[in-house]
């Protein structure tokens, strides 16, 4: 299918659901496996740029979970949806109130800044000496990929939402 044909068929709706438990069983790079599968899958129906964005979002959000497991017996859930309106990625996992607040603060900070690229640059340079990683992935999703982020905390579970509007692109 040519690029023009894919663009001409924006009504396709697709979704991917994935869950795994216990998280302590994860061996290898789960974020990579999930992220790398998406460009080809989404590329069947949408322009390559949509698959690339899905790859970045899933990789960064899953990596955040894997690097911050609070309960090795708990579950990770991934929901991805694409239609003519938006690409939406949700990642849900068990987290502490403190972890949620840290994520929420980062999302609020990037939402409130007029220049996310400048914030990413300042954050990178401020944290580089100590190689601190926290928050770079979320910042990148907004600064680089123009996702809208939000987070919800209920029943000891954190859900991070990343939404990219596709109106006008497909």
């Amino acid at each position, binding site marked *: 299918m040519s690029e023009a044909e894919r663009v001409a068929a924006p009504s396709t709706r697709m979704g991917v659901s994935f869950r795994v438990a216990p998280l302590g069983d994860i061996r290898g*790079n789960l974020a990579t496996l999930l992220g790398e599968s998406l460009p080809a899958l989404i590329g069947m129906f949408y322009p390559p740029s949509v698959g690339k964005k899905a790859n*970045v979002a899933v990789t960064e959000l899953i990596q955040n979970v894997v690097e911050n497991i609070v309960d090795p017996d708990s579950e990770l859930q991934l929901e991805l949806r694409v239609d003519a309106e938006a690409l939406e990625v949700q990642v849900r996992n068990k987290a502490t109130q403190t972890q949620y607040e840290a994520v929420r603060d980062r999302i609020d900070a990037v939402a409130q800044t007029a220049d996310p690229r400048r914030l990413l640059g300042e954050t990178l340079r401020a944290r580089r000496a100590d*190689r601190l*990683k926290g928050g770079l992935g979320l910042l990148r999703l907004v600064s680089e990929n123009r996702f809208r982020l939000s987070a919800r905390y209920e029943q000891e579970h954190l859900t991070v939402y990343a939404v990219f509007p596709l109106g006008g692109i497909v």
Partner: protein
Amino acid sequence: MNILTYCEIMDGGASVFHCVAREDEGSLLVTFSGVVRVDNPARHLSEMLTDLRQILPGRAIERTVIDFTELEFCNSNGFYSIMDVIELVYATVQGPVLVRRLEEDDWQQETLPILLNLDEATVAARTSFEDVREI
């Protein structure tokens, strides 16, 4: 071209990333290819950085090309490592730097200029871009 030094990252038993520094008649070519996804890429790049620190100051480099067009993906864990290589190149060689990057890649268009530190006037003055269309 002469290979000065290189770095390879293996992940899950497969070769997933290469960074190679080559020199030819006053030109330095640094290429990044593959994917940066491992947890701590700096651990893999440290030997190459040591090599570059020793090799580059003694070379008569007049111009540099840094090529990202074969780099398919870089997660945020890789940002500092990319910065380490770029910063070392700018600090140890003189002359203009041409950055080859993909025209339709959010990372290479949006975040790479931040990693290059183009806000720094001396860096910006030496840097130009060649945007390459992905086939």
